[in-house]
């Protein structure tokens, strides 16, 4: 498939709104009893911080392929580490305890897996985690790995602040509370708050939590949080591939089932190939991840902070992004 036009990207944006706004609104109402503090409470904390650099850990395949945790620990990086929920397991298993974990996706059953799911044995069968590179540790021995994650999150939860969207399933909120995390709430900026019947305005009025731009996914939300709330002058992105390595089987991609349903035998043709001149490799991506990529590039161009992509993989490069290796970032800014 060719790269998507703006009109095509808008279709994905509209569909995502249709898919997530109503369920997010319903979850916000269910989460009301747990909403005590908002992310604005972290601004004063951020202003006292000495370091002005942050690291954002996302759950793309490069997080496991490049294994950046030992380098960050060795460098004694002083700034905050912000993990997308999907990267939490990787961080904890490797001794990198994030200061913050961001969660936003309203999916009813999958997201709690990133925190260890106390009810996993009773869930319906779901091969989502087995198929993908998001966290290969969850591929095999699912229940044993889940127990390991439950224990790790319980052990370290008190030291991690949950940057939790009102859109998430209340089970996620309860799991974070059970692990001893402090919850700091926010709303996704779903739509234009000046439009009639705006979800953003309704959810703001319900919760009194600020609405934050998301970029369509958790990793980009974590980057926005570091920029807009922590006021980091520079952020390093890890695991932000928004694409699949050249040798990945299409069966191991996030939207494989939908792509086959839509395109049948020609599903492979529907993926988008992007040559990364820094890596001198061609990675491939699906329409949704391509939308994420374009959204992040748009946001990075508009933000008054420096964004260093230290993923060492993927397709996030362009104006507003400094594509570099983690070692260089750590040497300059630890």
């Amino acid at each position: 498939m060719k790269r998507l036009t703006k009109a095509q990207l808008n279709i994905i944006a509209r569909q995502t709104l249709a898919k997530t706004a109503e369920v997010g609104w319903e979850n916000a109402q269910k989460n009301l009893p747990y909403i005590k503090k908002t992310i604005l409470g972290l601004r004063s904390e951020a202003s006292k911080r000495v370091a002005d650099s942050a690291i954002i850990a996302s759950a793309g395949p490069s997080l496991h392929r490049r294994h950046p945790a030992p380098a960050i620990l060795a460098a004694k990086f002083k700034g905050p580490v912000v993990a997308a929920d999907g990267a939490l397991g990787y961080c904890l298993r490797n001794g990198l305890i994030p200061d913050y974990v961001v969660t936003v996706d309203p999916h009813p059953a999958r997201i709690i897996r990133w925190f260890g799911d106390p009810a996993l044995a009773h869930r319906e069968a779901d091969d989502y985690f087995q198929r993908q590179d998001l966290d290969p540790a969850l591929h095999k021995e699912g229940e044993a790995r889940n127990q390991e994650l439950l224990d790790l999150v319980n052990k370290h939860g008190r030291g991690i602040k949950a940057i939790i969207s009102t859109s998430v399933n209340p089970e996620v909120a309860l799991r974070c509370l059970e692990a001893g995390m402090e919850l700091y709430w926010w709303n996704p900026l779903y739509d234009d708050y000046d439009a009639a019947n705006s979800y953003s305005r309704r959810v703001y009025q319900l919760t009194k939590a600020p609405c934050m731009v998301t970029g369509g996914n958790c990793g980009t939300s974590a980057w926005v949080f570091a920029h807009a709330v922590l006021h980091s002058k520079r952020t390093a992105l890890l695991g932000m591939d928004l694409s699949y390595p050249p040798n990945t089987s299409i069966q191991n991609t996030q939207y494989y089932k939908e792509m086959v349903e839509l395109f049948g035998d020609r599903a492979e043709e529907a993926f988008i190939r992007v040559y990364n001149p820094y890596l001198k490799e061609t990675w491939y991506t699906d329409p949704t991840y391509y939308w994420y990529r374009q959204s992040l590039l748009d946001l990075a161009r508009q933000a008054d902070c420096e964004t260093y992509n230290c993923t060492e993989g993927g397709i996030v490069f362009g104006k507003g992004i400094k594509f570099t290796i983690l070692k260089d970032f750590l040497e300059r800014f630890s």
Partner: protein
Amino acid sequence: MAQYLKGNYRLPKKVKPKVSKEKPTVEQKFEQESLAKLGGSIAFIMKSKTFLWEGDEGEKTDQSSA
């Protein structure tokens, strides 16, 4: 077929097939429907470089606690 269906007269006015700019072709329609099934994790919009919306001026309160 068109090569066998030639008239032996001239039309007074050249007829152009109407192509509506509004209506998508079947291929475009399929493409639109396909893309619509591939929604992301959460809705996304950016309005006037506002990364964080804290309500209208009159609504803003100390929001560190909800």
